[in-house]
């Protein structure tokens, strides 16, 4: 055997041996997509930009048929007020569906409103919230019938025709994102407006926000400007300690926000 031939053959053998065994398996396209899908939806909220107008909540309720009279919502806005004498107030009256029109803090149906001296306010800000479409969602884990599930493009959905209404998922979500739909009587939550985003539209809330405090992106598309922010800037997620790996990222998240 000539030296050149020997070299050639050796290279072929090495190359052959380095093909992983798994490559010889039949390829399941669904698995491939799940392992490396082109689309994985994520959300970005800039709390500095939010003014608490509540347009997003209104738009969401309208788009997704959650009655305005019902005290539940797929998305909501929280107001945080810290006074100089170190007191903390939080509220979200009717999920802020009509915005924050009142300077007083809502302490609950039976406990009235709290007046705060404007000169005493240290810092104050708004935090919009919604389902985080967690990477490892405890809500889908606990569903006894598999009626709630995660799609391959990263959205957590509920099958209204199969949910038995046990409420286990509502209990399992550490973010309070879920509730029982007042007329459908099944578990309900934010869908990232799946019916819109899969058609190339924005979600209703992103669309309604006049200050661009809410944005959506495909986190696998590194050229997307929103993805760039998530990848390059300092962003945080809610309640990291539960290990659910939220896919809604926040700019300007205070540690007191829970």
């Amino acid at each position, binding site marked *: 055997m000539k030296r050149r031939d020997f070299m050639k053959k050796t290279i072929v053998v090495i190359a052959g041996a380095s093909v992983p065994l798994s490559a010889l398996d039949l390829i399941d396209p669904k698995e491939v997509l799940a392992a490396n899908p082109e689309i994985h939806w994520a959300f970005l909220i800039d709390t500095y930009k939010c003014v608490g107008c509540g347009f997003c909540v209104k738009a969401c309720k309208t788009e997704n048929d959650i*009655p305005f*009279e*019902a*005290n*539940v*919502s797929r998305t*909501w806005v*929280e107001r945080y007020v810290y006074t100089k004498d170190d007191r*903390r*107030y*939080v*509220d*979200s009256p*009717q*999920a802020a569906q009509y915005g924050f029109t009142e300077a007083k803090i809502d*302490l*609950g*149906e*039976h*406990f009235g409103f709290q007046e705060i001296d404007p000169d005493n306010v240290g810092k104050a800000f708004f935090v919009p919230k919604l389902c985080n479409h967690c990477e490892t969602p*405890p809500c889908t*884990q*606990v*569903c*006894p*019938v*598999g*009626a709630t599930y995660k799609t391959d493009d990263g959205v957590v959905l509920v099958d209204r025709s*199969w*949910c*038995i*209404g*046990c*409420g*286990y998922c*509502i*209990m*399992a*979500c*550490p*973010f*309070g*994102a*879920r*509730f*029982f739909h*007042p*007329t459908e*009587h*099944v578990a309900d939550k934010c869908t990232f407006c799946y019916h819109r985003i899969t058609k190339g539209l924005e979600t209703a809330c992103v669309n309604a926000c006049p200050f661009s405090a809410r944005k959506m992106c495909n986190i696998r598309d590194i050229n997307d400007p929103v993805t760039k922010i998530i990848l390059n800037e300092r962003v945080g997620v809610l309640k990291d*300690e*539960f*290990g659910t790996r939220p896919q809604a990222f926040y700019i300007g998240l205070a540690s007191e926000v*829970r």
Partner: protein
Amino acid sequence: MVEHAMAVHGELWTVKELFVLPNEYIYWSIQIVMYPFMTGLVAGAFVLSSLYHVFGVKQLKEIARFSLVFSFALLPVAMMPLLLHLQQPFRGINVMMTPHFTSAISAFGIVFMTYSFIVASEIWFEYRKHFVLTTQTLAAQTDRSGFDNLRMYFFKVLTLGAMDISNEAIQKDHNAVKKLATLGIPVACFLHGYAGFIFGSVKANALWMTPLMPVIFICSAVVSGIALCILCYVVTMEIRKFMAKRKMSRWAKDTSAPTVEQLQSAETQEIAIASNYLLYFMIAALTLEILDMIFRGYTQVKSWDILREVILERDFNKIFIMQYAIGNVLPFLLMVLPGRTVRRTTIATVLVIFGVFMMRWNVVIGGQAFSLSFSGFMHYHMPFLPTNWETFREGFFGAVTVMATPFVIFWFLNKIVPAFLKEDEAH
């Protein structure tokens, strides 16, 4: 608790204080308190009956058979609160069709069926002789009424064609009962421990999440089951003594029926032994519960601030007065102080059952008494008068229905498999 144009599920009985997230309500209410309470009784009653069959605690012979029948009567009721609580009760069967095994609830149907099957077969072996004898007695009667005929065929079906009551055959029944009882203990513990797992594994809930939860649930289940069996046993024995004194029903025609004195001595003996077991399990349950609380107070993780406020302030009466003082310490004293009588034990069992109920309440409702934001509280106001289907099933009367059902079932069941057998029919 405002009556809204469109009340959301849970809104009717939840009062929010300070900052509670908009979607938070007390979603798991009284029926979910009833669920572990009732499964606990089932499991506990079965464990008591097994003490005799498996460990050969002879003194528990009568109460063991009684507990077995009672645990069977309780069985269908373990399912009831879950169904009453579902928003889509007619889809309940979906759990069997597409069980999603990462969920702790999904296996409920399977565990429950296995357990029912074990109890049912144990009862069958235990009562086969009775079925055969009843069939034979009825067949021997010449002047059978239509009802007697029906009864005869019914019992004949119950024998499943196994009419052999020779000594060997009965011995085989014995062995089968023993095997099933042995198998039943882990399954009963699993049935209930896993009700504890349903709560203990909810990481979102600071009060529920602890690996001790299943074990705590098993111990308190056995406690409540034994207590209930003692209580019901005493009540039925009192009725029997009352009838024996006045020579009513069986005592009128049957000379071999036990006399008042015999009944009395049997009762005293069985209660004495059963209440000792009750005490052991009470100590175990209490130790674990206190351990859990001390551990939380000692480690003081983030949630402790709000938990402390719930446990030591807002729910203090429910936890320390009703659950621990009235439901544990008082009955404990009643049973350990010298000169224990049947009456004192009976009072103690009532308190123990109440205590276990309060424990379930404090876990289920207490776990929802604070917001996920850790900045607010929720108060539960159980609907009392049923104004519609929702306030019935998730209210006081729904709970009472669930509680009363096993007694109705027991009454019917007792006609077929009498909890008190004549000596010659019994094993």
